[in-house]
């Protein structure tokens, strides 16, 4: 009998990612709920703070990232619930697929979902809060990508853990929120600078912080994830 050759890591990631995105596309009801949840959060901020458009415009970066963070908890929680309903995680483990590929594909899938969500929220934010993107769309997009990746790497590891534990809906935010604070701070500051202009040239250092955060947590997730899902 011929030995099963392990499929290369990147190819596995591609296949798994395509599978996750397909599931996401076919269960659009969940996606829609997520979008409206994030929109409602943005709307709620303007009610909680009051209709002072100056305050809203000044804090728009922070509100955007809080809305994304709250939505991410729902999205991350779902991403492993799908795998458990039909015991597909066991199937994936039995297949000659590297567990690290599961981490990469899940984390990339979650990041893509959040980036898409963020892109949808921007026009709403512009309309609701009266902000303008003064630094250009490219800088905004870089912030969005780096910030969403920073949420999704530790979020994927923790959601794999929390989805098996008791009180999983409490556990995931409890684990994730304190950890994510540096990334949230950097992303919110960078977004504010992108929206309001950057006279002191600080944007680069916030990007650096986000990049470093991503490097650490994608690396840790890549190394530690196989131990999380082993049985």
């Amino acid at each position, binding site marked *: 009998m011929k030995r099963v050759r392990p499929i290369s890591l990147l190819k596995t990631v591609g296949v798994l990612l395509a599978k996750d995105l397909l599931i996401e596309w076919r269960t659009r009801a969940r996606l829609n709920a997520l979008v409206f949840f994030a929109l409602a959060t943005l709307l709620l901020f303007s009610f909680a703070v009051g209709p002072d458009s100056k305050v809203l415009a000044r804090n728009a970066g922070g509100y955007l990232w809080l809305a994304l963070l709250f939505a991410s908890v729902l999205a991350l929680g779902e991403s492993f619930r799908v795998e458990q309903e039909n015991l597909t995680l066991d199937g994936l483990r039995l297949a000659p697929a590297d567990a690290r590929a599961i981490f990469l594909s899940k984390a990339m899938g979650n990041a893509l979902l959040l980036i898409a969500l963020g892109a949808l929220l921007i026009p709403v934010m512009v309309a609701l809060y009266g902000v303008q993107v003064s630094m250009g769309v490219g800088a905004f997009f870089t912030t969005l990508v780096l910030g969403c990746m920073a949420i999704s790497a530790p979020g994927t590891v923790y959601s794999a*853990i929390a989805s098996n534990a*008791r009180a999983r809906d409490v556990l995931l935010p409890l684990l994730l929120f304190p*950890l994510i604070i540096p990334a949230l701070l950097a992303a919110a500051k960078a977004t504010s600078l992108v929206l309001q202009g950057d006279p002191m040239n600080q944007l680069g250092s916030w990007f650096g912080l986000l990049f470093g955060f991503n490097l650490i947590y994608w690396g840790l997730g890549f190394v530690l994830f196989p131990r*999380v899902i082993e049985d």
Partner: protein
Amino acid sequence: MTAATLLLLAVGTYLGLVWTPEDREMGHVYRIIYVHVPAMWMAMLALVLNFGLCVAYLFKSSWKTDALAEASGEVGLLFGSYGLVLGAIWGKPTWGTYWDWDPRLTAMAIMLVTYVAYMALRRFVEDPEKRAVWSSVVGIISFVNLPIVWFSVKWWRSLHQVQSTPKTVDPDMVLSLRVNAWASLMILTLFLLHRYRVALATREAEVALPEALPTDAPAPRNDRASEVA
């Protein structure tokens, strides 16, 4: 050992409160240094130990490693919170406020919350083996914050002064600081050992009698049981 610890603590308290002269600028208020600084050192020590044990567990599984990791996480959290509260009490007369969003304070508070989550995870997972693996992973991820806390006073020169060590304080204060630090180290060791024994006993009970532990599963109803039978 308990007696020796109490004795050393008494000596340290005497030295700190009576023997050492008061500070030229802060007066008696500065004396909190003899408990606040050792408490933070011990918190750092316990959390470094926790990190080492988490890594060790992933390489070689053992109930002892896991039990000591649980003990060090909890004791580190305890000392860290104690140090933070002491610092806040000191902050009111010196800085004029209990809390300031200074990088050192903020980073420390964030780190403590991550370890609260670490301890919560240990309560929420019933399978002892899974709990050990997952909490090791979470412990390693949480540890990333500790170097940030440690170097925060050097990176961002802000309200919180640079760490006090026997090298930076006045020579008159060195002895008191050292004695109190050793006393804290002995308290830390006592707490660790005691908590470790409790954790190990819990593991043994869990492994020996898995069905005796409370679960979330609803108890079988009598009528349904008769139906099945």
